[in-house]
């Protein structure tokens, strides 16, 4: 679980920082990484790597959210369709 969390966290970071248009994928992957990291921290043998995965997943998720949600909201508002967080 810890390794899976780290892998997903790295993917979320890559989606957030480098892969334009895939931030929504990064957000989903980041959420799953956070869940696996949190659960992995409960086991002493994988606590370290799970913590690393958790941190990467949280950062990746936050970066993806900032870019993806903002684009969705801004597009909706600026195109006259409005109703971002309605």
């Amino acid at each position, binding site marked *: 679980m810890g390794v899976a969390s780290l892998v997903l966290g790295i993917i979320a970071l890559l989606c957030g920082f480098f892969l334009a*248009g895939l931030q*929504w994928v990064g*957000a*989903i992957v980041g*959420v*799953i990484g*956070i*869940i696996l990291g*949190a*659960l992995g*921290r*409960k086991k002493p043998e994988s606590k370290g790597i799970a913590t690393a995965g*958790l941190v990467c997943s949280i950062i990746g998720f*936050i970066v993806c*959210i*900032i*870019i*993806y*949600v*903002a*684009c*969705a*909201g*801004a*597009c*909706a*508002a*600026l*195109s*006259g*369709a*409005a*109703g*971002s*967080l*309605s």
Partner: protein
Amino acid sequence: MLPYIHLFGKVIPMYGLCMATGLLLSSGLALWRARAEGGDVNSLLAIIACIVGCGIGGAKLLYLLVSCDPREVLRELARGDFTALANSGFVFYGGLIGGLLGALLGGRITGVSLRQYCAAVVPCVPLGHAFGRLGCFFAGCCYGRATDGPLGVHFPAAGIDEAVIPTQLIEAGLNLCLFLLLLRWADQSDRRATILPRYLMSYAIIRFLLEFLRGDEIRGFFAFLSVSQWISVALFLGCILWMSRNRRSA
């Protein structure tokens, strides 16, 4: 209106920044409160991730159902065209319903009882929501009706020529008041157990009344009320039923 800021040479979208800030603050506070009450922080973190993930999905889904043609969206997705997903907004009530379902999912995954975390988590929801509404203000969406009064705000970049009521700021302020009220209730033994229905009923009242001040027509309507007003009514009545059943069984 301030859709973007420039920080360290980067363009940072304010709506996403506000939402991320709200998520971090509310989640951090919930985890801190749970830890102070002796709860398992790791399990709660997994539950919060489920809530946030399902909440964002639910908010997006309700927007697509209310403001777009669902069949057209499905056709686009089948063609591999994700434009509708990328360019459409969110509806808070969809996020709330999705978040509640996410909490149930999180409880299943972690195997812990959700009741023990309610008093720690529920008061933090309106705190995060308040920041989300600040993001709406900066993005120029979810605005109110046109007004000549002193509170009128212009959103020229959103294509609105006249001054409108800043319902985003009003709701953000009311959410902060609700946050403080829920913190107080969570500390009272007789109200702690019903903190979730109390929050839902309080927000339903706030939202129902604020909808009369809203001016963005893109949000859905059914008969003489907006979709959010109908959801507010259903939520309020559902909570009354829930609380009266609990009182009878107690």
